[in-house]
C-alpha cells in the first residue's frame, strides 16, 4: 500500500487555516462511520497523522490527501502512487450523484452551496408541516427579508427564500452550511460539530437538528459502490463546504 500523498489542490489549500477541532471532525468523517472504523481508510496508519493527532493543523495535507484518495478510483489511485484526485473532481462526482448542476470554471463555494441546498431540499421534503413551520420559525434570521411567513412554508418556498439569502453571501450561507454539516456529523460520527463559532448558532442547530438529521440519513445511506466512495465523499464535501464558509466568515488576522 502506498502512503498518502497530497496533490496540490486549490480547493483544499484553505484547510491549512482551519483549527485542530475542525480538522479532527473532518478526519473522523474520513476514518469512521457510526463509531466503526472504515475498512478502506488509510489515515490512521499514517505516521504524520498519528504523530500530530494533538495538533492536526500540522497534518492538514495528509487529511486532504485521504479525501483526495477517496475521491479517486482506488485502483487508479494505486497507479498514481497514493495520490488521489483534486477536490474539484470530487465535487463534480458528488454533484452528479446528487443531481446538482455544476459548470466548469464556477467558484467552488457557489457549487457547494447548491449541494447544501440540495441536502436541505431532501430534508424539507421529509419533514411534516409542523416540523417545517418549526424550522422556519427557528431559522427566521436566515431568510433575506427576515419576515418569512411560516404559513407559506412549503419546501419550494423555503428553498427559494434560502437560495436568495445564500446568493447575498455572508452569514446565511454559513448557517446553511452549519445546519448540513451538523447533521452530517450527527449521522456519521454520532455527535454534533466540535467547534461552532458562536453559542447562538449552536442553540439554533440544536433546535432544528432533529428533523434534518432524520432526513439527511436518506442522502448519506448510499450503498457501497465500486466507483467513487460516496459514503465518504458526500459527507466530506458537505463538511468541507461548511469549513470553507466558516473561514470566509472570519478573518485570519
Amino acid at each position: 500500500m502506498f502512503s498518502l500523498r497530497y496533490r496540490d489542490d486549490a480547493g483544499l489549500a484553505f484547510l491549512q487555516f482551519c483549527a485542530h477541532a475542525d480538522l479532527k471532525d473532518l478526519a473522523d468523517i474520513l476514518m469512521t462511520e457510526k463509531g466503526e472504523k472504515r475498512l478502506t481508510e488509510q489515515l490512521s496508519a499514517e505516521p504524520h497523522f498519528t504523530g500530530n493527532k494533538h495538533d492536526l493543523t500540522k497534518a492538514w495535507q495528509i487529511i486532504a490527501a485521504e479525501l483526495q484518495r477517496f475521491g479517486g478510483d482506488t485502483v487508479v489511485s494505486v497507479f498514481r502512487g497514493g495520490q488521489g484526485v483534486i477536490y474539484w473532481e470530487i465535487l463534480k462526482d458528488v454533484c452528479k450523484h446528487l443531481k446538482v448542476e455544476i459548470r466548469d470554471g464556477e467558484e467552488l463555494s457557489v457549487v457547494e452551496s447548491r449541494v447544501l441546498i440540495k441536502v436541505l431540499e431532501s430534508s424539507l421534503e421529509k419533514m411534516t408541516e409542523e416540523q417545517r413551520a418549526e424550522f422556519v420559525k427557528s431559522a427566521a434570521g436566515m431568510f433575506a427579508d427576515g419576515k418569512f411567513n411560516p404559513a407559506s412554508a412549503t419546501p419550494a418556498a423555503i428553498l427559494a427564500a434560502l437560495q436568495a439569502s445564500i446568493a447575498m453571501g455572508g452569514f446565511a450561507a454559513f448557517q446553511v452550511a452549519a445546519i448540513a454539516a451538523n447533521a452530517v456529523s450527527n449521522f456519521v460520527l454520532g455527535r454534533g460539530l466540535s467547534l461552532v463559532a458562536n453559542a447562538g448558532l449552536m442553540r439554533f442547530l440544536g433546535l432544528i437538528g432533529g428533523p434534518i438529521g432524520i432526513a439527511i440519513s436518506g442522502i448519506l445511506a448510499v450503498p457501497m459502490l465500486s466507483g467513487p466512495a460516496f459514503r465518504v465523499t458526500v459527507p466530506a464535501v458537505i463538511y468541507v463546504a461548511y469549513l470553507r464558509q466558516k473561514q470566509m466568515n472570519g478573518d485570519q488576522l
Partner: protein
Amino acid sequence: MTSADLFTIDWSKVPQEIADALASGKARIIDGVARDSKSYEILKHIPFRTVTLSQTGDLAQVAHQVQSLTNVVQQSTAVLQTAIALSTAVTVGAVVLSTAYLASKLRELESKIERLEGELRGQNLLFYASKASSYFAAVEATRELIASPELVAENRDLIAHSLSRLAGQRHETMAFLGNLCRLFDHLSPAHQALALDFFHATLDFVPKAVLVESQAAYRLERFRLGDHLRQSARTAYDACLTDYKAWANALLKNVTRAAPGTGDASALIARLGEAKRLIACEQNQILLGTSI
C-alpha cells in the same frame, strides 16, 4: 542576549494614594516620576528596585518575568492590574532604552532593507527605503543620547535637534510602510517575501522607536510634545496595521474561496505566524500606549 540587571517599580514603597491615582488615571508615570495627568505637577518620585532578568532579547519573555516578579498584596483589582501593566511597561521600556536590544534589532533591519533595496530598483520607493534606513540609525543615536541623566543634562540641544528630525523621519517611514503595503499585490512571490520580512521587522521596530522619541521629549520636560508624538505615532501605527490586516485577510480569503486568477499567497502564508505574533504583540501596544 544574556541576563541584565534592570529596574522595576517597588510597589511596596509606593504610597496608597499614588497607587490609587495611577489606577484611576489621575496620575501617570512620566520619566520615572508620578505626575498629575492634567497639570504634569510632580506627585512622587517612583521607587524602583533592581531585578535580574534573563533573555532580555525577547520582550515577551521580559514581560512574563516582570509579571511574575510584581508583588502587590492587599490591593484592589484595578490597582493590581495597573501595577502589572506599569511594571511591564517600565521594564520592557528599560530593556529598549538601556540594553543592546535596539542595536541588535537595527542590525536585523539593515540586513533586510539592503536585500529589499536590491529588489526595489526601478521603483520610486527606493527613495523612501533610504529614508527608513536613516530613521532606524537616528533612533539608536537618540537612544544613546538619553541613556543617562548626565548625558541628557549636557546635550539638551542635541536631543532637541534629534527630536525635530525623528518626527519627520517617522512620518516618512510610516508613509513608506503604507506604500509598501499597497505594492504587495504587484510583487512577485520572491519579492513579496522580502518586502513582508522588512514590513514585519519595521512594524515591530516602530513602537520601540516611538518609546525612544517620547522619552527623549519627556527628559527635556516637554511633556505635551512627548504625549502628542506618542499618540500621533500610535494612530499612524494602528492605521498601518489595519491596512495590512485588510490586505492579508482579503488575500487569504481568496485562497479559501479558490477563485480562479487570485494572487499567490504563499509568501504571506509562510509568514502567517509572524504576522499573528506581531498583531497580537502586547509589548508593542504597551510601548505605544503608556508613558514610563
